[in-house]
């Protein structure tokens, strides 16, 4: 059990490529923090620096109350789950779990006890004598988790552990990881590019872009008040629509746009905040042509073009409204659903 503190962490590769450009982050004891961002944003590099698999160019890294910058991964008291699991193919599941404990000089009966407990928790008791290649993807994933679990480390590090699974298993394992972390209360750092995984798993999210932190906060804080246009576009699916303020003014704003914060020239509107029926209270009206109708069961996605503009926009409505492609539709937006941004700085205005 320990907290993790990153101070000004930087990673520069040969040829002056900055992969991570100075990250400050404090992860409290027992917290589940998710690093999320598009590929190439430096999230995996950052995780590997915490693990000790990449060297730290600059800054300090504390795990517990030790500075661990130059320690070997094994000395940092962390356990890691890899994307491709990296199970030892020639060892049985039991030995895969036991290997780390053997190397640390645990007694045989203690190893046995810990492996049994972890196997029971992950429901892999029946496979202990099998080799990894005889297991399905989901089972391998659980063995990889078990290998981290038996060590009872100060922190778990997850490097996109679910991305090799099919959609259904991914949801199952996500729930299992969350429950497990709740129960064990081990500090965890989890890397993913899947924003849904990030939203549902994390106590806090860290949104990374181009080696820098864009925003840190609880999933709902980030969803409700994205601090930058990047975060607004990255979190939430389908992505937030960005509409220039000028356009809305030109279409008749009913005075609703007058009290937007200074500097706002673009507003973000979530696909679910565009309604087909007029809401109570003051609202904006947007006209558009329906290009494509996508029925997704309980909800539908409408891909529209705003009238007199080539701006593509997505709208999410529940159920299946009686609309036809090519039809002109009217949408209504309330004032509090607008996210004001300045397109030059990319930042949210009025904060």
């Amino acid at each position, binding site marked *: 059990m320990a907290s993790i503190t990153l101070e000004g962490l930087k990673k520069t590769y040969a040829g002056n490529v900055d992969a991570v450009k100075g990250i400050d982050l404090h992860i409290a004891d027992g917290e589940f923090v998710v690093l999320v961002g598009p590929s190439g944003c430096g999230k995996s590099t950052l995780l590997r620096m915490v693990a000790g698999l990449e060297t730290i160019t600059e800054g300090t890294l504390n795990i517990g109350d030790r500075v661990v910058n130059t320690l070997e991964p094994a000395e940092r008291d962390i356990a*890691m789950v890899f994307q491709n699991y990296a199970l030892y193919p020639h060892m049985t599941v039991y030995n895969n779990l036991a290997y780390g404990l053997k190397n640390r000089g645990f007694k045989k009966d203690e190893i046995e006890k810990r492996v049994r407990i972890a196997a029971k928790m992950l429901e892999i008791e029946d496979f202990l004598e099998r080799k990894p290649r005889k297991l399905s993807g989901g089972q391998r994933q659980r063995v990889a988790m078990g290998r981290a679990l038996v060590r009872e480390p100060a922190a778990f590090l997850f490097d996109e552990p679910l991305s090799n699974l099919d959609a259904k298993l991914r949801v199952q394992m996500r729930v299992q990881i969350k429950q497990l972390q709740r129960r064990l209360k081990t500090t965890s750092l989890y890397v993913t590019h899947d924003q849904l995984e990030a939203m549902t798993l994390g106590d806090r999210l860290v949104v990374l872009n181009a080696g820098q932190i864009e925003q840190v906060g609880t999933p709902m804080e980030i969803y409700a008040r994205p601090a930058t246009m990047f975060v607004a576009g990255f979190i939430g699916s389908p992505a937030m629509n960005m509409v220039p303020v000028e356009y809305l003014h030109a279409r008749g704003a009913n005075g609703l746009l007058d009290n937007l914060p200074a500097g706002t020239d673009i507003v973000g509107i979530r696909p679910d905040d565009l309604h087909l029926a007029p809401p109570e209270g003051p609202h904006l009206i947007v006209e558009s042509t329906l290009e494509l109708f996508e029925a997704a069961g309980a909800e539908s996605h409408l891909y529209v073009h705003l009238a007199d503009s080539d701006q593509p926009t997505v709208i999410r409505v529940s159920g299946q409204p009686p609309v036809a492609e090519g039809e002109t539709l009217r949408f209504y937006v309330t004032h509090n659903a607008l996210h004001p941004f300045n397109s030059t700085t990319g930042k949210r205005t009025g904060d």
Partner: protein
Amino acid sequence: MVENRPWANFFAHTVLIIGVALVIFPVYIALVASTQAPGELMRGTIPLLPGAHGIENYTRMWQSGVSSAGTPSAAQMLWNSFVMAMAITVGKLSISLLSAFAIVYFRFRFQMFFFWLIFVTLMLPVEVRIIPTFQVVADLKMLNSFAGLSIPLIASATATFLFRQFFMTIPEEMLEAARVDGAGPMKFFKDILLPLSVTNIAALFVIMFIYGWNQYLWPLLITTNPDYTTIVMGIQRMTSDENPQWHLVMAAVVMAALPPVLVILFMQRLFVKGLTETEK
């Protein structure tokens, strides 16, 4: 291929049978010849059916050899060959495993230079460097010894290169997982790399053993003492006798062919096991 074409089947089998017959025939002749009475083989026509002197010829060759040709007993020569071949095989495998491990997993200065240095020696067969090597071995007083027979042949660029290629196919996460699990470099080598390389080790073991077993020029150069005569040298010596005793020579040939066959049969189980058990 799953096909049903009787003529194609017939043709394929004919080709295979002819091929096998061509390979088997000389071996059969050697076996038959080794069972003949002395002088039988000098009469012009080589007999095609086994004679009655098999046991006698093999016992004589095994126990005493041909003293007129200066060869010790086959038992002694087979033992010498076996020790030399094993020393070369085990030596080559250990050195090349370790050097491939160093080249793939450690970052050091001139790494690529060393790799190319090893790679370039692939192009130099023993015969090219035989004179200087002889000088070195003579200066080190290793003439007429097993050390002299095996050590100069141990360095192996081929095996180092093959192990390097194999190690590079092992995912990097395997090393990282081992590091997180607290395994140091040598532990990783012993617990992860070696078990994963078993198939390659078995295959190279066979190749290297046969290479060592068949060495002729090198042992001929550095041994003068009959206690170190290898079986390949012995056969050569017996055939260049002024009155070669072919029935005994053939008995020695058959015995010389057996150990490589046994090594292949034994190692075969390992590669079949390895082939069916590799991860994806």
